């Protein structure tokens, strides 16, 4: 079977983002960009399933501007066999991405689509579930383990308070949580190999999808800063403050 892994180019995890002075968004020019960490886990999971003999091909797909190709190359260096780039410069919101991915799924016919549980830029955490609903496929979000059986995926999910195990009939959608795997270190030979792997480019129009933004962002501001408090010298002083000043214990 084919597995599709969806990846997104985002502001790197270690960048301290700054809100633009005109309140139109956050500064993304001249900022380090990387693959969304949860998507790296998705590509790694897909690659391991292929290495374990459960998949014939891993297709990495991304939606976004020309630079998103770099993110696809990273996915190919981890182990995806080929890439699909749905090229668009419009501001993509989760519902539009899910519609584009649905069209890609209908073309490629994967049996399993693995996505990150959330992107660390918009923190929406929706795309996998939206895609599952649009395709009318079963879903297992926040996965920490995936086992493939005969026409099934048995997925352990991270839920409030512990874990839950679901069995899904394929085709299905899985979104990744942190502990599913630790993505491999991408080696130079694999980066070189990735450069030779094929990437197809499609447009939203090719797929018959209107990807325009529906939610209107009125403004983006910095959150109210929390004032830095004082220091205490020892445990006795701390207890005194908590009891008599803050009155929380």
């Amino acid at each position, binding site marked *: 079977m084919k597995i599709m892994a969806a990846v997104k180019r985002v502001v790197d*995890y270690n960048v*301290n*983002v700054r809100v633009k002075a005109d309140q139109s968004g*956050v500064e993304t020019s001249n900022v380090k960009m990387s693959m969304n960490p*949860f998507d790296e886990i998705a590509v790694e999971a897909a690659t391991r399933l292929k290495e374990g003999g459960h998949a014939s091909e891993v297709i990495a797909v991304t939606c976004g501007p020309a630079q998103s190709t770099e993110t696809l190359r990273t996915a190919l260096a981890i182990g995806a066999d080929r890439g699909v780039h749905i090229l668009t410069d419009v501001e993509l*919101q989760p*519902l539009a991405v899910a519609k584009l991915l649905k069209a890609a799924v209908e073309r490629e016919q994967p049996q399993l689509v693995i996505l990150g549980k*959330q992107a*660390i*830029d*918009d*923190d*929406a*955490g*929706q795309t996998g*579930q*939206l*895609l*599952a*609903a*649009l395709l009318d*496929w*079963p*879903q297992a*979000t*926040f996965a920490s383990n995936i086992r493939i059986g005969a026409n099934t995926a048995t997925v352990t999910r*991270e*839920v*409030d*308070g*512990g*874990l*839950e*195990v*679901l*069995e*899904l009939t394929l085709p299905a959608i899985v979104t990744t949580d*942190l502990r599913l795997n630790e993505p491999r270190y991408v080696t130079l030979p694999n980066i070189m190999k990735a450069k030779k792997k094929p990437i197809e480019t499609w447009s939203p129009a090719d797929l018959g999808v209107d990807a325009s933004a*529906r*939610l*209107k*962002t*009125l403004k*983006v*501001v*910095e*959150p109210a800063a*929390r004032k*830095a*408090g*004082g*220091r*205490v010298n020892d*445990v006795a002083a*701390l207890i005194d*403050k*908590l009891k008599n000043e*803050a009155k*929380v*214990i």
Partner: protein
Amino acid sequence: MTTLVIADHEGARLKAATLNTISAARQLNNGVHVLVAGHDARGAADAARIIEGVDRVVLVDAPHLADGLAENIAAQVLMLATSYTHVLFPATAAGKNVAPRVAANLDASQISDVIAIHDADTFDRPIYAGNAIATVRCDDAIKVLTIRTTAFDAAPSASAPAPVDTKAAVAGTQRARFVRREVPVSERPELTSARIVVSGGRGMGSAENFALLDSLAQKLGAAVGASRAAVDSGFAPNDWQVGQTGKIVAPQLYVAVGISGAIQHLAGMKDSKVIVAVNKDAEAPIFSVADYGLVGDLFEAIPQLTQAL
């Protein structure tokens, strides 16, 4: 103009997050209905009907709703959703799992982690781990929101109970099956609704050392949390994780022990009423949000603190 709140519950019991979501719903100045979809969920429905601001409880009780499968709960919500202007879920693991499925079927743009409601169409939500707050307007006929529970107070009890309507369930899916749940029984309160949270970071050094926090938490009646660094190092289970990619908490008192204070961690706890930081590194960023900072060795300070309480 009526809002439907989807209850997060455990059958007999309503989860605290539902009360915060009801508070958010009341700010829309609409009627508020609460859907309890589950099995043997009469207890949760009875709890929901005595919450202030709830005008009606809709109870759908069926065996295939027992385990909260997203496919089945979403189908149930969709059966009702077109009678409402807003559908609100708490931004819990359960709510986040189901809400987008509902939105997609309504061709609506779901809005995640709402922290403020300006009017019926305009909402604030955090982006970039809470380093920016976006104000967004939604023109969809039915708005589907998840509510960040720490941003809204829990709704109080009502004087008069609301009526409970029982509705028949729609058919469930055969393509997703619940296998089992592994939820360790804990004497500690639930992390997201605890009054006090004691969290450990990489500075704890090992899983065994987390026992220090357990003793302190026991004394304080607190829940135990962890930073992502501590979870990644295998010191603590993932469902203890506080931060951008874990749980969002806002207790009365948050005690950060051996946590440096990466922005991703601050995203999960900076709305706590009082923050205490214990760290041997005087330059650690956690001190910039702490009300009371103690620079010192946690392996001395925490046992002393536990002893003295």
